[in-house]
Every structure is written in C-alpha cells, then in structure tokens.
C-alpha cells in the first residue's frame, strides 16, 4: 500500500512533527519507496516463529533495592531551556486543540 500526504502528515503529528507541504510531499515519496521495499516482510510465512526482541539471553536484570545517588539537580537542569528551582518550566498545558495534552 502507499500512503497519502494526509496520512503521512497524520503519522508525523503522532510523533509531534509538522512539516510544510513541500517537505510532506518529499517525505511521503521517501516513505512510500521504503514501504515498497519492506512490504514483503508482511507476506512471509512466519507462523510458529518466536519473535526476537533482544540479542542476549539476559532475563529480568534487576539490582538490589538499595538507595543510590542520582544526578544532582544542578546537573539535571544544566541543559534545561527553562527551569525554576527544581522544576522544568513549560507553557500552559491544554489549549483545546486536537491532541492538546
């Protein structure tokens, strides 16, 4: 299947990305080219094959339940675009627009 520009814009917005029309058109072309290349994966008969999520045999790696030092606040906020005390500052939340968190 191939995606329309509107669909690509939708998936981009799910990833919180918006593009102008020319960039959306270019992205649509590229993604459709890749999907042609990837399409056959859906047609493989892989019934009964276990999915592989990881390349090692490690299972449930845990550590002891002991207090450990974490990064100090001055480092945590060192790269913050805006912060006040021990809080990151963001603009108001909830605008009434679609997807407003």
């Amino acid at each position, binding site marked *: 299947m191939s995606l329309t520009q509107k669909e690509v814009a939708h998936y981009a917005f799910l990833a919180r990305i918006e593009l102008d029309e020319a960039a959306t058109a270019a992205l649509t072309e590229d993604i459709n080219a890749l999907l042609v290349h*990837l399409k056959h994966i859906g047609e493989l008969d*892989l019934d009964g094959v276990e999915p592989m999520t990881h390349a*090692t045999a*490690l299972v449930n790696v845990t550590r002891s339940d002991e207090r450990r030092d974490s990064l100090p606040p001055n480092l945590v906020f060192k790269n913050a675009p805006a912060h006040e005390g021990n809080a990151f500052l963001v*603009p108001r939340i909830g605008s009434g*627009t679609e997807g407003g968190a």
Partner: protein
Amino acid sequence: MAETNVTARTNTEAALARIAAIEPKINAFTQVTEELALNIADSVDERVARGEDVPLAGMTVGLKDNLNLVGTRTTCASRILENYESIYTATAVERLIEAGAVPVGKCNMDEFAFGSSTETSVYGPTHNPWDTERVPGGSSGGSAAAVAAGMVDAALGSDTGGSIRQPGAFTGTVALKPTYGRVSRYGCAAFASSLDQVGPLARTVEDTARVLNAIAGHDARDATSVPREAEDFTAELGRGAEGLRVAVAVDWLAAEGLDPEVKAGVLAAAEALASAGAEVGEVTLPNIWNGHSAYYIIAPAEASSNLARLDGVRYGVRATNPEDVLDLYVRSRSEGFGPETIRRIVLGTYVLSAGHYDSYYGQAQKARTIVADDFAQVFAGYDIILTPTAPTPAFKLDEKIDDVIAMCSNDIFTVPVNLAGNTALSLPMGLSTGGLPMGLQLIANHFDERTLLRTAAVLEDHYGFVCTPAHASAHASAHPVTEGAPAC
C-alpha cells in the same frame, strides 16, 4: 612509553597540530577539545611517572559525538542538541581514559547515527581522506576519517546496522562491532537500543584489540551489558590460522550491486586463509534480504521511541514563544530534527501504529529470529564467516543522498549481524583499481572476539596494507604503544 621520548603530552600536541592542518579538508570533528585533551594527557604522564600500569598511555582518540564526556558537548550532529553539555561520561569513554587514552575531540556523524555517509550531520559532511570528493561512510564517518587521516590513533564509534564497519571499509581502517552486551551503552545516545553497540576503529588489528580490552566488560549502569570475565583480546594475535574453520557466505556474493573487485577480494581472503592452514568451506545465509527489511522496520521503530524524549522540555533546542505545550513539542521537534531523522521517526511511528504493527513490527521481530537462526546454524560448524563489508568502495558525496533505497542498500551485509547480536570486524583488504579501500567483513559467534581478531591478524599480515590516504600525506603517527606498526 617509558622507553621512548614520547609522552602523552607530546603525542597529544602532535595530534592537535595534525588536526589543525588537515581538518579543514576533512571535517572529521564537531569539536576539538584541546584544553581538556592536554589536561588528560598531563594526568596520564603523571600516572606513568608514578609507575602505574597505563596500557593505552597517550593513545589519542576521537569520540563519536553521541558519546558523552563531561567537558564536551554531545550533539549527535543534530541542531536539536547543538548546545547540549554532557553531564556525565559514557562508561566506554570513562574506561578508555582510565586506560590512559586521551580524547582530543568529538567526531562528526550522521544526525543521530541515521545514515551511511555522514552527510546528514548539521555540521556538514565529513570527507573521505582517500578522496575528498567521496564520503567516508557512516554513521561513524568522522571517527573513521580521523583515524585514517592520522589525526588520532584510534576512535570510538557506535554500530546499529554497520555504522562502525562500513566507514571502516570506506576509509581503510580496522573497525570492530563487539557482540551485543560486550560494551556498555551507558552514556551513548540511544538510536535503536536492541541493536546499538559501541566499538573501536584503529589502523591496526592490535590497536583495535587494545582499545577493546579497555572498554569491554560488565557495567551495572547498562542492564543489557552481559556479565563476563575480563579477557585479553590481544592474547590470540599471532596464533595463526591453523585449525580455524572459515566459511564464505556464497549467496551473499551473488547480491545485486556487489562490485566484482570486492567479491574477488572476499574469495582471495578465503584462499589466503586456506593457504595459512584454515579449513575453508562455503555456506549460505538465505535470510539476508529478510534481515535487511526487518532492520529497516525495527531500527526506525526503536528510534522513534527513543527520540520521543527530545521535546524541548528537559534539554535541547526549544522553539521560541510557544503558544502552549503542544506547540512547544511540535515546533521544537520539527525545527530541531533534520530530514533524515524525521524520515526515520515517522516511518517508525507508522510501523508501530495500530493496524500496521502486526504486519510490520511483529513480522520483523519474527524475521529477526530466522536471521539469527541462520547464523547459529553456521557457527555450529565454523568459527568465522567471510563477507564483503559494503557492496562497493566509497561513493561520491551527494551521489546517494536523495535515493533512500540506494543509501540503505549499503547496509545489506552489515545489518544482519546487528539483528543477531554477533560480533564482526571490517578489515582493509587493499585498494580497488580506482585507488579506494575495500573492506572485508569477518563475522564471529557471540563473544568470540578473540577468534575474530586472531583471524583478522592473519589476513592483516597477508595484505601488508598500509593506510596512506592521499589527503593525509604528512602522516607522522607518534603513537607510543604500537611501535613496529605501519606508520599511517
């Protein structure tokens, strides 16, 4: 080093001078951290003077710019992180410094490691020291170019689908992707967490092994790091080929687009190993294309998830005067990411979305299993698989940047290894008739880096390849720990 007049400081000063002379032609670095390098060099010299064991004393290294080091920015060659100051140091980097290496700067890369040419960097492309009209490969292209041009003795890169090995092949350097879990990923900006692995590039097999000695080992800060006893990866260098069981992946040599000279090189490598006493056979690994497709689903899927953290809130570039928090997210990301990164994020979002998950991501995870099974079957009877690293020598700048399929086809021989988690190395096997390096890929079983390096050392002796790129002709490596190695 004590037996020579070279100190960590003099070797570092020589590297910095060389970078100053060559960097305008190559653009291998996103930043050169001179003061930090000289401070570290001085502390190495003090440790040596105190009689401490400092195995890599004074070895100058470049760090791919997705590896954190306090005192440097870690930009991932992206506008969105262009001012990001490292607030901790990656474990692999910490261990390298502990072993006496001296980082001199951060190396250019494809933005967030998405690419095979180092052309998607916000800092502009890196040029191949063998031919500056050509790419150095990617995504660790800055690391590879810096090593090939003699600007540093070694470098660290990261390899998610070939991003250490392919630039190694394009620049005539030795480039190793360790087994998944061998080297800590802590402090390496994540691209695809189930595939990423940090590893070394150097001009000789021995230096590659020495760097691996320094950086390998369990790290409690990376839950995917595998607990294993320490090993000396130089231990089997020089042991020869007697008794090695080597397989040529004959079906991979029939791949469309494979340069005949590269193919001939792989076959010649097999003959050389046979002459040296190895038992050589032929095998097939039929799921190569399924692996390629699986990779281009799994890697963008994981990347889209990993890069969700970049939203203009905690770090990174923030859009100016956002109307609300949604506007903040959308504009910070849309303005901060380059086109290739956006392409991967959107593709990853699509293959993970409801209605498409099963036919893409779910199937890709199963295809990953059959790729890993191919390798497991071969390694039941062999120690090493020989393949090309890349289908061709280095291509020209801008040649493939607008053709997504051509660009990603460059990874065809490397991505299956990441899916299966094996270790692999690219070794320069000489120059093409066009004067460009060609890379041989050697693949070994999980955690069998010693056999991998042993085999590579046999072929390195056979080739006698000396890394002398045309655009770095004034080489004068002052590296103190590889006396007798070819001056590159």
